[in-house]
């Protein structure tokens, strides 16, 4: 079996950002995403999502360059004012082209 390594980018963000984040991901080259509902606490105090439902946990499997672009974009656009964190890691998948191909 041929395994390929791609990047898994995980984003934790307040729920109001959902539409914009998913739009950004697609723009930056992600070809799919998976969203779960979470709650959490960080160094910032209250965030709007705290009382209005859950936060988002978004995962997207992408090529390494796309992953870097996503992290960079998030850091520039959302980190200053929104409760958003993001991290990435290497994972192995069976059919890499599904996640790495250009859109």
């Amino acid at each position, binding site marked *: 079996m041929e395994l390929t390594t791609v990047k898994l980018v995980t984003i934790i963000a*307040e729920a*109001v950002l959902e539409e914009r984040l998913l739009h950004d991901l697609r723009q930056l080259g992600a070809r799919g995403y998976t969203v779960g509902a979470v709650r959490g606490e960080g160094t910032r105090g*209250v*965030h*709007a999502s705290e*009382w209005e*439902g859950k936060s988002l946990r978004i995962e997207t499997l992408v090529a390494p360059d796309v992953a870097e672009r996503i992290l960079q974009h998030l850091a520039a656009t959302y980190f200053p*004012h929104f409760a958003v964190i993001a991290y990435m890691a290497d994972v192995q998948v069976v059919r890499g082209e599904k996640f790495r191909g250009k859109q």
Partner: protein
Amino acid sequence: MAILELMQINLLSPMVLAFGLGIIATLVHSDLKLPDELYTTLSIYLLLAIGLKGGIALAQTSLAAFWAPALATLLLGLIIPLVAYAIARRIGKLSVADAAALAAHYGSVSAVTFAAAQTFLDTIGIRYEGFMPALVAILEVPAIVIALLIAQMAGGQQGGDWREAVRELLTSKSILLLVGGMVIGWLAGPRGGKEVAPLFVDLFKGALTFFLLELGMVAARRFRDLPTAGLFLLGFAIIMPIINGILGVWFGHLAGLSLGGSTILGVLAASASYIAAPAAVRIALPQANPGFYLTAALGITFPFNLALGLPLYYTLATWITGGA
């Protein structure tokens, strides 16, 4: 009735007591936790039920008497955010973003406070115009737009997107359910309304009670931010509603509303939004501090209006309207 008696009736209503139970649950760190989905379901139900009842009432009402109150409400939606912004900037020395955020919240309206006002008036036997839910819809959006425009002009918006915020406002679930419910009620009329009355009318007060249990817990979680909020915010969150309540009652009276109608317009003006405004402000004014506006609207003003404001604005209305 004397104001003390009204206070007592209000404080001993199941809905206010349930709100108190929610506060206690949070203060004693109980493991009681209503599912988020229940909160969402109840808020959808309440908005739809308010709209439906209003629409059915509209179907039976002459609309001739409607334009003056509608105009008065629109004016309130323009004046209140300007006043609130000025106070927050001048007296409170808040940043542009924080002041505009407060203006958006206090200019807009809380549908649950409206529902509580209806229930209170029903209990003491005071009638009000059937088209009041339409006024809720009219008051909800303009103030938020005004506040965002102020921030835009004053340069307090960075990274936010106010056009996007306004677009989302107009299609937001509270407007959609309120206006949609009214249209359904109006089209279906009393006959159609009777079919769904067991759910949307009979259960309304019980559902409101349940919802206030949850809201008590949410409000109490805001209490822990009170110490850092400062004296200005505390004063603002109590005095602003009283000013707005007087304005609302007065405008209502001028526009020809009944005693009950003027009371409710007072309550609407006095109430602070905690559904539409926070969402819009978060998007358009991300640098405004949510710990600030949520604490004011949900942690102070909402409990104040619910517990003391309702009988207060009614008493003011009996004075201003001469009890008519």
